[in-house]
């Protein structure tokens, strides 16, 4: 076992909140160690709806939460310009909906007061005919519709940008590193013991430890003998590898919940469910019933939905704060910063609850609590300080495409991930050959990710640069990607093949619940292209 190293703060959990805390504290001049048991943003953050929203539905519960959410969304949109895209919803109103069209417009009029805080336009009201002109796929049974704006974000890149900035300001960040013990001394948490990817166990001593592990927070809390009461809620999304509608669309589920079909840049997320979850957080399955529940809700407003071929599903568990006698959907999305000093775990602070849209604020308040404990009088600067890749404007697409010999679309996608650092990525020295044609991703970008962005598996590559994220789900690129990554990480030929098989097996779990006829055709093609080597389901 390696000897202990010392930090001001150890942060456990590399989701968006943990990464945000690490960035905030590093910018305030504290030494930080950030530990994540899987990959950055691979848990709840990555399984979100990929949205920075202002919390329209909170108007029913607490207007101040809506205001705060809009303020913080505005900060995120400003500091992460390359990672966000405008998401414009059509809110169709049908006869018999739970809210009539005047009630819907009232809520949007109130919401318009907060929209400027996140650089969004006010709502527009459309008649049924007008709504069909802008979104012809809507059901004919419309009373009318509204538009409302939110922002889409790539949560994987958002998490990593926070990690990257924390590291640039002196933090140490390790993914695939599991905390196995909180070290206590006389009722005080003084550090952590953790297992690195190579199996080596090490210790880190710290003046404070932050538990930012989302739904795993009770598990980490238990290591220090404290109880954290959450009400974990499972949510799934169906992923379509194209935009299938002009606008994003809202719908009502059979039990009256709000559902969203979010048209992101080049793909569509349809979600989400919200169910109490009692199972294993490391193994959350998607059920075909959940898929049908979502499709049923959307079929009512967008009848052709079942004609489209989904490419996979995602699932995650929200770390919702505990409350008795509430339906899952009615639970508050507020967050709590919990100091465990009074529970015999002095030095341990947990952050629980909240949403992706408010991650920066959650990180700031957690960091404030840490700084108050440590007597460190420095204020947060994360609201106005650009994340990496946003320090300057990116090079025009045509110029970079011509200089590097790649397509304009490849540049657009590269800039959406790396912003003004795109050129640096392409200058990595590797070939700019296109590796994943659907996305598209260059070999240089994957090489850069392996060398500089802590990509250690093909699933990490999927999250960091989008390899295998398109319509073919990796059929055409996963073996090539394994070659490139293997070359960088020193894998043998069999390790490269095993890595590809592991990726295909993991992807299969998310794809199986949504395979229809066209999906099976794609699956057969993929199996054929890989000569059956990737067969993941022996029963077929």
């Amino acid at each position, binding site marked *: 076992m390696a000897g202990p190293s010392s930090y001001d703060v150890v942060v456990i959990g590399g989701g968006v909140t943990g990464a945000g805390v690490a960035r905030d504290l590093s910018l305030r001049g504290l030494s930080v160690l950030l530990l994540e048991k899987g990959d950055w943003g691979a848990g709840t953050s990555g399984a979100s709806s990929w949205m920075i929203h202002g919390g329209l539905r909170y108007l*029913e519960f607490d207007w101040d939460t809506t205001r705060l959410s809009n303020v913080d969304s505005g900060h995120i949109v400003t500091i992460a310009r390359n990672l966000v895209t405008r998401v414009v919803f059509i809110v169709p109103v049908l006869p018999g909906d739970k809210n009539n069209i005047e009630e819907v417009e009232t809520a949007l009029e109130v919401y318009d007061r907060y929209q400027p805080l996140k650089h969004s336009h006010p709502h527009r009201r459309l008649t049924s005919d007008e709504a069909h002109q802008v979104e012809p796929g809507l059901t004919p049974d419309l009373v009318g519709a509204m538009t409302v704006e939110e922002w889409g974000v790539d949560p994987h890149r958002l998490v990593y940008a926070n990690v990257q900035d924390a590291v640039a300001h002196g933090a140490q960040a390790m993914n695939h590193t599991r905390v196995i013990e909180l070290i206590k001394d006389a009722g005080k948490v003084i550090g952590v013991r953790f297992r690195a990817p190579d199996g080596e166990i090490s210790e880190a001593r710290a003046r404070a430890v932050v538990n930012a592990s989302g739904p795993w927070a009770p598990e980490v809390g238990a290591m220090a003998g404290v109880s954290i009461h959450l009400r974990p809620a499972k949510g799934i999304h169906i992923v379509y590898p194209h935009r299938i509608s002009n606008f994003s669309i809202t719908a009502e589920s059979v039990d009256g919940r709000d559902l969203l079909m979010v048209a992101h*840049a080049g793909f569509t997320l349809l979600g989400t469910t919200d169910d109490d979850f009692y199972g294993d957080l490391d193994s959350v399955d998607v059920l075909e019933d959940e898929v049908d529940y979502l499709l049923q809700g959307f079929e009512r407003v967008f009848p052709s939905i079942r004609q489209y071929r989904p490419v996979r599903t995602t699932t995650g568990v929200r770390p919702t704060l505990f409350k008795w006698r509430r339906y899952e959907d009615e639970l508050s999305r507020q967050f709590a910063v919990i100091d465990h000093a009074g529970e015999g775990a002095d030095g341990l602070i947990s952050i629980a609850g909240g949403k992706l849209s408010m991650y920066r604020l959650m990180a700031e308040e957690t960091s404030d609590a840490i700084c108050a404990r440590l007597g460190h009088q420095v204020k947060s600067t994360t609201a106005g300080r650009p994340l990496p890749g946003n320090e300057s404007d990116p090079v025009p697409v045509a110029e970079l495409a011509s200089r590097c010999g790649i397509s304009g679309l490849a540049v657009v996608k590269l800039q959406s991930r790396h912003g003004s650092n795109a050129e640096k990525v392409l200058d990595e020295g590797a070939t700019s050959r296109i590796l994943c044609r659907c996305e598209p991703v260059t070999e240089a970008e994957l090489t850069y990710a392996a060398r500089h962005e802590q990509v250690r598996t093909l699933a990490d590559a999927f999250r960091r640069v989008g390899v295998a994220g398109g319509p073919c789900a990796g059929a055409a690129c996963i073996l090539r990607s394994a070659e490139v990554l293997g070359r960088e990480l020193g894998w043998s030929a069999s390790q490269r093949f095993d890595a590809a098989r592991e990726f295909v097996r993991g992807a299969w779990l998310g794809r199986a619940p949504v395979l229809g006829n066209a999906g099976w055709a794609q699956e057969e093609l993929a199996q054929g292209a890989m000569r059956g080597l990737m067969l993941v389901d022996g029963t077929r």
Partner: protein
Amino acid sequence: MGRADSLVKLAWAYGLHLARRRLRRTRSQLRDVYATYNPEGIRAVEPAQRERHPRLVTCINCGLCALAAGRIGQTRLPDLASSYMRLYPRLGEASFDVAGDSPDLVAATAVCPVGLPLAEVAEVVRRMTMR
């Protein structure tokens, strides 16, 4: 308390909204929608193409069309269907990728195992790339 307060304020806003709707003449806001969102590339699929749209996105990236007909502009045909047809709002910035001559799209469609109408796909993509 927070919820009761919110509901009261919403009820007040609702009353004001109804009064305004009665007193003011309403006008079409369709032009505002187009003016706001067309520059963002958000309006993509037109009504005439809507019904056929599910068929236009069925590419399984087998690559046969590339063997049959090659490229459209600088772009390989499978990329046209599997990548450009994903309707990115920023596609206009990559318009030079698909500028130039069209190959024999009838031949490309004939070899497609899922019967993708490539001429129609090309038309949608080219329209999307026009700013």
